[in-house]
């Protein structure tokens, strides 16, 4: 078939996609800036802090990658985290009388948190798929609902974990295993599982197909509603997991817990190269995106060159530049 063979050469050219490395390059540049501002930036303590902090947004963003890849969006994650944290604290405090202040209470509390996360995600998912309401509206609604629930439970203030349980639970945030803090371990495990699920299973492939073209997915006998609902459940589970490692940090939850986490999570996902309209998801990029966002905040705390009031400007600029670096047509002249 000479005529078909002729296009071959053009196509087989190995395509090294420079854009793939965009987020990594952005992160390296940030680290260089941080180090030049203050060498303490690369101290072990600071790196550990950075990674641990990234864990929350990172874990949530892994879930968001699935939702967004399948063409959805979840604005409720920050409020959901606050609500789950609040309910978990109330529950653990109540369990003290029955189960004492040991590991069992913490385990039951954490188990319930995971369950709540799954249920909250399921609610978002079913309202979107069965209810046929835009994900944006559903999750904007549940965002308000979850947030006001935690305010209600806390009476507008702060819910605090019983002091004795805090002792039992504290290590989950503060302790390390082989020199790596436990939240970072959780982050690593979630990241690897997420990557595997996205790239090596039928589920990940279905998410991509649905986000890419829902009609084609449906005609390929994929149960679109089921898969979409599952992405929200996964998002809920990720939020719950993030909450479980968040609560022992300060032992409290209030109506200001997790404010704007949804935007941070979505930003991490998109900085990482996932396409907001769906159909193309990159877990690895998401992890880098979360690290980039945390690093920006960290660097701004490391210098007093910039007026405090302009933090938002710096953040905004860096986000735009980071994405621009990877989106612009660098390769055009080389093609």
């Amino acid at each position: 078939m000479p005529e078909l063979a002729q296009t071959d050469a053009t196509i087989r050219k190995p395509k090294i996609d420079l854009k793939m490395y965009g987020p990594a390059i952005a992160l390296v540049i940030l680290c260089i800036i941080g180090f030049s501002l203050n060498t303490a930036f690369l101290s072990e303590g600071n790196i550990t802090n950075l990674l641990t902090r990234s864990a929350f947004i990172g874990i949530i963003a892994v879930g968001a990658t699935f939702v967004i890849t399948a063409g959805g969006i979840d604005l409720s994650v920050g409020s959901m985290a606050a609500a789950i944290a609040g309910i978990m604290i109330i529950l653990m405090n109540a369990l003290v009388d029955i189960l004492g202040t040991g590991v069992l209470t913490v385990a039951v509390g954490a188990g319930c948190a995971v369950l709540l996360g799954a249920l909250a995600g399921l609610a978002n998912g079913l309202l979107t798929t069965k209810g046929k309401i835009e994900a944006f509206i559903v999750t904007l609604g549940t965002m308000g609902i979850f947030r006001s629930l935690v305010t209600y439970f806390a009476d507008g203030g702060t819910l605090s974990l019983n002091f004795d349980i805090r002792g039992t639970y504290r290590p989950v945030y503060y302790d390390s295993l082989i020199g790596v803090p436990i939240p970072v371990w959780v982050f690593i495990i979630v990241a690897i599982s997420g990557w595997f699920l996205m790239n090596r299973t039928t589920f990940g492939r279905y998410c991509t197909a649905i986000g890419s073209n829902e009609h084609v997915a449906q005609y390929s006998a994929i149960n679109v509603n089921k898969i979409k609902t599952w992405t929200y459940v996964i998002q809920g589970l990720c939020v719950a997991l993030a909450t479980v490692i968040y609560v022992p940090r300060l032992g409290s939850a209030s109506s200001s817990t997790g404010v704007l986490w949804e935007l941070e999570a979505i930003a991490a996902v998109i900085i990482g190269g996932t396409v907001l309209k769906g159909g193309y998801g990159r877990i690895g990029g998401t992890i880098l995106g979360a690290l980039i966002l945390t690093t920006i905040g960290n660097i701004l705390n490391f210098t007093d060159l910039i007026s405090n009031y302009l933090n938002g400007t710096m953040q905004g600029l860096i986000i735009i530049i980071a994405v621009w670096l990877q989106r612009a047509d660098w390769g055009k002249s080389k093609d």
Partner: protein
Amino acid sequence: TAQDTIKIGVSYPTPTHAWAAGMNWHAEQAEARLEALYPDVDLILINSPDPAAQASALEDLVSIHGIDALVVLPFESEPLTDPVLNVKDSGALITVVDRGLSQPGIEDIYVAGNNPELGRISAQYMMTRLETGDNIVILRGIPTIIDNERFDAFMAEIEGSGINVLDHKHANWNRDDGFEVMQDFLSRFPDIDAVWAQDDDIAIGVVAALEQADRAGDGMFVVGGAGMKETIRGIMDGNELVPVDVLYPPSMIATAMDVTVAAFKSNGPVAGRYILGATLITQENAESFYFPDSPF
């Protein structure tokens, strides 16, 4: 009958942190107490999430409830001046709480804490404990006038004492931000002798960061502010890391409601200004500021 009921609107920001929740709690307590005491008084509590919503709420209090008096804790002074003026024009008695309006003479009654005083008292305490050449860091609140008043008064007071302010960052009256900003201060500055956290919520995050970094000893101390019950409990128990607190009482709204009701019920004149002090709470006097039932 309905006409004889005295309707008093109470408007304040939606609680999003513990101090505001304490204020809300005191307001609700006062509502129950006053309505039980005076069957012809109806207090209507409305909270709003932002200045524009509060302006709308004030309009609604007039147009729907037809209030006779307004107790208002403005979200911000400037934007609410005009809306409160409109309420006054409807003939209602005006009580302003905490944040003064930007135009004098609108309110009949003014009840407030003292923000500059909070900064000053905090600075004075710092100076009693620190010497020339000692280093402190400051964690500020949300960028607002309140934060500026506290911060400016603190800086003015500490001026010339020889104490170095290494840096100040906004921690937004929030525990998480307090924790993260303090972590970064600790990475950045190897020698910190004291922390002014301005607020008890931030102080909780600061303490957690200090403990994590093992830098809570060696005479290090943290000064918060407002009078959270857990903090006061700690002071009573002799906590060395957070040895004092500076009072900024959330109960001021209840005081304002009492005074406003009194304006209708008592014979004496009640109009005027009631400024509450920013008392330094120490182990000696802590007991009298401890309300275990309040959420704050």
